[in-house]
């Protein structure tokens, strides 16, 4: 067991409002960790810390450290763009670029300066296969990504993320905009991906957390209430709040 990421004494503020209170938590490599908790408890804020997407929010301020492979990613000498090449992010709503399917997946590779057509083709194909989308789109690679269904678009976004071979994938409610069938496909995919990736997923869906995650962290109003193996959280939670939340008594 290896710790891939770690949050040390992490507090986050938006101006005077404190969104996260002194979080300490480490994430196991090649495992799926689910972040659950009621709306507004700070899950997205927390997730965005790991690829520094909060940096664009003018009122954002961080205390504490976020370590990836033991290195603080908020150190002055860290180049954010390089960091993000190792940490992919899949967003709540599918957000493909208004470009072709191929160019969407090739985007990150092109950003990294890869121009060789053959290499691009191989990597795009591999990513689409990993995202379980290849068979559906292999004859339409030049079509606009906007012609795909919502579920396909989300798998395309996953493929786009995987194409650059990150070691960590962050997902913020990746199935909340999808129908049950598309959701099932994405869930299966996430389950497959953990062999190669460390995955952190925010989800509103208790069943989903139960089905796909190895660990679950329950947040409430900026506090980390409980963090443990998923089966433990769902069968024998230590805190009443957790118990109430997972049984749907509030949230």
């Amino acid at each position, binding site marked *: 067991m290896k710790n891939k990421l770690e949050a040390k004494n992490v507090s986050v503020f938006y101006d005077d409002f404190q969104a996260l209170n002194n979080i300490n938590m480490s994430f196991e490599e090649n495992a799926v960790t689910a972040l659950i908790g009621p709306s507004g408890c700070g899950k997205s804020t927390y997730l965005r810390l790991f690829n520094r997407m909060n940096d664009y929010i*003018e009122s954002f301020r961080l205390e504490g450290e976020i370590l990836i492979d033991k290195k603080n990613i908020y150190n002055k000498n860290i180049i954010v*763009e390089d960091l993000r090449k190792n940490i*992919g992010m899949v*967003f709540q709503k599918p*957000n493909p670029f*208004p470009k072709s399917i191929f160019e969407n997946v090739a985007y*990150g590779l092109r950003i*990294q300066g890869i121009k060789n057509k053959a290499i691009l083709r191989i990597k795009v194909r591999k990513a689409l296969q990993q995202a379980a989308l290849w068979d559906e789109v292999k004859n339409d690679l030049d079509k606009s990504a906007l012609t795909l269904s919502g579920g396909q678009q989300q798998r395309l976004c996953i493929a786009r993320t995987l194409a650059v071979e990150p070691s960590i994938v962050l997902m913020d409610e990746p199935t909340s905009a999808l129908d049950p069938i598309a959701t099932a496909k994405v869930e299966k995919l996430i389950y497959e991906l953990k062999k190669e990736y460390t995955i952190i997923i925010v989800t509103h869906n208790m069943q989903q957390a139960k089905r796909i995650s190895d660990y679950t962290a329950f947040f409430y109003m900026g506090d980390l209430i409980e963090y443990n193996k998923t089966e433990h959280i769902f069968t024998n939670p230590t805190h009443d709040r957790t118990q109430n939340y997972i049984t749907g008594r509030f949230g």
Partner: protein
Amino acid sequence: MNKEKIIEGLLKLSASITILTTIGILYVLLSESISFFKEVSILEFLTDKEWTPLFVNKHFGILPLVMGTLLTTFIAVSVAIPIGITIAIYLSEYAPNKFRKIVKPLLEILAAVPTIVYGFFALVVVTPFLQSFIPGMSGFNSLSAGIVMGIMIIPYVSSLSEDALRAVPKALRNASFGMGATRLQTAFKVMVPAASSGIIVSIILAFSRAIGETMIVAIAAGQQPRLTLNPLVPIETITAYIVQVSLGDVAHGSLEYKTIFAAGITLFLFTFILNNISYYIRKKFKEQYE
């Protein structure tokens, strides 16, 4: 009659006034032009290389005026488009919110300055300044007029392009940043392509505005129709010619007088075509996002 009906009636009335005015303008333009072309052949109008309707030796070739218009327009858009788009990208992709909120209205003031002020600015400031290191530049020339016109047009381009960039869903910008793209890469590989139709519309507007601009060129570019690409010598644009004749003592109904309608309809054709292109692009753009 109730209020609703009165208001509806007023709206209909103003809509029909607009349409009637347009029809009226078109009617006058067309009928006067037709009577012009009874005396001057379209072939001469389109091919003669001189435009001297006010001289004894009359020539009616529109080309020098068209060339003057295109020359000043080209200079103006060469200034307005790169600067305008750069400003738009800076404001939407780089500038902090507070800065944008201050700068945008300031820029729009540029478009609100009366054009006659720009005209004199070109004539008494820009031209002497340029003359200090371009020897042989005439007092009237298309370069100063074009540059100053370009400055005037900057806010049209920057404002519309910035609106187009801001209309691109934020999620696309986040996706790009999330992939490790820099701001510059995100701007040029994602945002600008996604906003391209809006940006193109702003460019077309810049062209129309430059083609139709009158006061600056009338004051600073000269009144000498000349088939030339030299930006340092006096020329005349279609609009400046129309002003010159309208203000002069040419007898109404004379052939000289009718030339302004022939010139006017040429101008109208240019802007009409540009308007249609921009309408077409906007329509296509709408479909794309529906």
